[in-house]
């Protein structure tokens, strides 16, 4: 018989205790987090728009073309702030506001790369760089494939 610890039922004592803990430990301040994420996420978007406009006007690009260098700039800023040790301090308050945009993705990769630099290029930086970003990439690709398949089969 295969026993999965995730499905193992709690004993009476465990049930009573987990309920006691649940009552005692406060919930994270969801509302405050949501408001902060909204503000910071909005600010990130404003910056993104600013860079898009800069590239659009100075290099005479179309809005669509200006998007790519703007994203690259945002990634650069996210990476730079991570390297300077500022990103994690802001992200403690900003939460999803910084994590969901491309800045969060840049942070997860640069933070891992920095952390495992001491283990060398092959076993450190090279293999651990996508420690946190690996899952979003994997499931991003899978989702893109499924959505693409549906699009190809049903839309055309």
């Amino acid at each position, binding site marked *: 018989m295969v026993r999965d610890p*995730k499905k193992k039922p709690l004993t009476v004592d465990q049930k009573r205790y987990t309920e006691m803990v649940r009552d005692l430990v406060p919930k994270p301040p969801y509302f405050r987090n949501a408001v902060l994420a909204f503000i910071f996420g909005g600010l990130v978007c404003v910056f993104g728009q600013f860079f898009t406009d800069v590239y659009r006007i100075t290099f005479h690009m179309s809005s669509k073309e200006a998007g790519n260098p703007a994203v690259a700039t945002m990634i650069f800023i996210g990476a730079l702030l991570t390297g300077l040790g500022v990103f*994690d301090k802001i*992200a*403690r*308050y*900003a939460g999803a506001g910084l*994590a969901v945009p491309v800045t969060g993705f840049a942070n997860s990769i*640069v933070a891992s790369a920095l952390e495992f630099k001491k283990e060398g290029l092959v076993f450190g930086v090279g293999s651990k760089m996508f420690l946190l970003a690996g899952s979003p990439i994997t499931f991003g690709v899978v989702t893109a494939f499924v959505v693409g398949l549906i699009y190809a089969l049903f839309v055309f």
Partner: protein
Amino acid sequence: MVKKIGKQTYKPNNPPVIISTAAVVGPFEGQGPLKEYFDHIYTDLNAGERTFEAAEREMLLNACFTCLNKAGKTPQDVDFFLAGDLLNQTITSSFSALELRIPYFGLYGACSTSAEGLALAAMLVDGGFASLALPGTSSHNASAERQYRYPTEYGFPRKPQVQWTVTGAGAALIAAEGEGPRITHMTIGKVKDLGIKDPLNLGAAMAPAAADTIVRHFADTGHGPEYYDLIVTGDLGKFGHQLTVKMAASNGGFDLSQNYRDCGLMIYDTETQDVHAGGSGCACSAVVTYGYLYKKLMDGTFKRILLVATGALHSPVSCYQGNSIPGIAHAVSIEMI
């Protein structure tokens, strides 16, 4: 002579003496309310080393040498070095043992290692197997954080029940005779698991073990909480502290509300230092006990204390595979006789 009293408690015939202690901490702990009780405060997290792991080793070695130096001893005088830490395969302790050249027992009790080492050292000395034993332990915020959680620069909001791993190391020198507080009882705890699965809520995972060991200690010795000037747990934090008070009352009928504190709440200023539920890590109970409490015992502020160091015996692998987090707690009573 029977040294075992009750079910899990041991009483040495000649209570061994803690002849000297040392506690060294990182910069963040050095800003806390106990800063004047530490022997050395590092000004950077790297402690002049290339990696965080090497920094932790430097801290443990510094604590050991400071401790030996205070008693006027050299590593050659010591019979056993008992150490443990949080890193995989306890590399800090083993690599430190390599430098110290003292016969070495590697321990792993997670954050309960300070009391585990103290209890074993007392047994070795009282049993006549050693004349001097050196228990020590260490933890480092950045090295623990990257092993158990996320890279240090990764940004994410912290939950209210999260604890902050203490950077630092502590060591004590145990002898059969000498000046100083004595180890009069050791209660060795059982592993307890009451189904907590959240690795960010370790205080709640360890509280059942702490309460169990405290109740067992009182039942075995016949003492009550009022026998001690101070009862301290290792690193339960704000919520673990409250849970332990509740469980000691419901399981054993003992009222801990008067003289019970937690090292995780003592080492930081929880109002200004933004550590959420308090400190954690092997060094948490070690530096508070060997720094603050030892000096308070020596100057007579406290006569009897009960140290209950608590450890969460999980690993990232066990958590990802869906296991709940077992906890352990060992109690050591330290008295000025």
